[in-house]
């Protein structure tokens, strides 16, 4: 359980340990079924929107079965980095990426790689909950499974399991056929997470998943992330530094498309190496 952080903006002005790293759980012993997780390594990643050079020579190692947070001011490129990992970046007209994104040893941009397989293995949760409006709760969670050709009781079981794993089961078990958009914001986001985990990815990318939600829903999402990292590698973009402190094992600070610092969350917030990091985490800009 992650107790809500007592930290708020005023406490951040001092560079001392003002943000209690209560959220840093020591690495839990890996349970047998998670096996070896899969990490993501970015090697000299560059991304462009047309001629605009948005991401510059970014190299990051996201460790398996851990939560890594990407923080930084708006426009620093955090979302772009994450969208390059599951190759969503190239869906934007005129956008392209260069460099390597390795899932373990395999480059996601390799010539023989099937994009739809990439996105099944690397899932994504978006800032605003986006359940498919014409589909029921069940159909939403089943959407990815149906794409992969799954049918019948086996598929139904997976759907139920996914809904259970995000803690939504009790709230929706009696209305699985009602529209997905009929849920509250926080429930919708958990629904989207259930949709993502139903296809059993290895990595989950989260782009500011709680920023559109109320504080209680945010808390539930953060608890969920803490549980999910048992089975998945998680990369979370957040503009909320307390959130990063609560959920992330390690944190990456980005500025103007470059990685400035990447270290244990604890260290980033209490004793950052780079001056720019310090200025950001103490609230002097951004």
């Amino acid at each position: 359980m992650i107790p809500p952080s007592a930290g708020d903006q005023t406490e951040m002005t001092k560079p001392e340990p003002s943000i209690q790293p209560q959220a840093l759980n020591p690495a839990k012993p890996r349970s047998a079924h998670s096996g070896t997780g899969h990490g993501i390594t970015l090697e000299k990643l560059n991304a462009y929107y047309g001629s605009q050079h948005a991401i510059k020579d970014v190299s990051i190692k996201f460790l398996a079965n851990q939560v890594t947070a990407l923080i930084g001011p708006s426009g620093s490129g955090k979302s772009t980095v994450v969208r390059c990992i599951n190759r969503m970046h190239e869906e934007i007209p005129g956008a392209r990426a260069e460099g390597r994104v390795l899932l373990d040893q395999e480059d996601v941009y390799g010539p023989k790689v099937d994009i739809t397989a990439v996105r099944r293995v690397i899932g994504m949760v978006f800032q605003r909950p986006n359940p498919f409006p014409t589909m029921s709760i069940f159909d939403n969670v089943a959407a990815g499974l149906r794409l992969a050709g799954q049918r019948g009781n086996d598929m139904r079981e997976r759907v139920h399991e996914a809904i259970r794993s995000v803690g939504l089961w009790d709230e929706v078990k009696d209305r699985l056929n009602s529209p997905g958009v009929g849920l509250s914001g926080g429930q919708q986001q958990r629904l989207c997470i259930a949709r993502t985990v139903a296809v059993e990815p290895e990595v989950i990318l989260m782009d500011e998943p709680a920023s559109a939600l109320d504080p209680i829903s945010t808390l539930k999402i953060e608890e969920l992330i803490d549980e999910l990292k048992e089975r998945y590698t998680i990369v979370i973009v957040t503009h909320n530094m307390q959130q990063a402190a609560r959920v992330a094992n390690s944190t990456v600070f980005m500025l103007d498309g470059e990685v400035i610092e990447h270290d244990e969350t604890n260290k980033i917030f209490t004793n950052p190496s780079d001056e720019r990091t310090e200025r950001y985490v103490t609230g002097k800009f951004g």
Partner: protein
Amino acid sequence: MESSAAGAPHALLTAGPDARRRKAVNRFMEVVSTAAAVVAVAVLALVVISVVIKAAPAINLKFITSNPQVSPFGVNTGGIANSIVGSLILIGLATAMAVPVGILVAIYTTEFAGSRVSTTIRFALDILNGVPTIVTGVFVFGILVLGARQSGWAGAIALAIVELPIVARSAQEVLELVPNSLREAGLALGLRRWRIVLRIVLPTAVGGLITGSVLGVARVAGETAPLLLTSSVFSNLGVTTNPSQAMPNIPITIFTLSESAAPQDHAQAWAASLVLILFVLLLSVTARTFHERSRRRLRG
């Protein structure tokens, strides 16, 4: 999934068993969609090119500038000068009626009317737009021709009724795009509403109003059904400028020639079609392009 996780990462990124099928279906749908677009454009080209080719033997300056002559055997020779003049007069009269009324309706609904009245008027315009043009012809026939005779006025009024909703709706769109801040600036300067409309709103929107009207003209230039009952029986073969008689016009001329069995008539029909289609398509393309540009400029 977990069991394969311990194996080579290769396996994770390779395509699933039915990935090839999904890719094939995707490709197939892409081809189908593109083909549909190609077919549509091809049909357009086919029709236009047919008209051009078939009109070639009969189209020349004489055709446009001389009046029809019927030979002793009842075959049409000569040209369509009277139809061209007649059409221009009919379109001109119709537009002179429809454009001011259309713009006034648009002014009323966007500047003065409350929302319920506005909705009612828009609803009426939508229905008016959906009335089949032959029914419009029957209507004008009923009020003007029955008990009297066909006339250019009747034809022009029928065309005006068809043109009105088009002009009104496009004018409404354009007026609504004029930013409210301009109106408010006028109010703040102490202008009354009517001056604001005439001196600020209309000049701002004038580009869109013109192109919207041109779209209306392009539409009625090609309308045959409204004229069929109101201005289709011409008493002489010369140029008429008197709207109290039925006026010759291009659409009816094409229609009549198309129903004939004589190949010479067909050739004339094609030639007249070329004149009409060029007129309509050129007006349409110009109006649409500039209309889009005006709207975009207003949206800012």
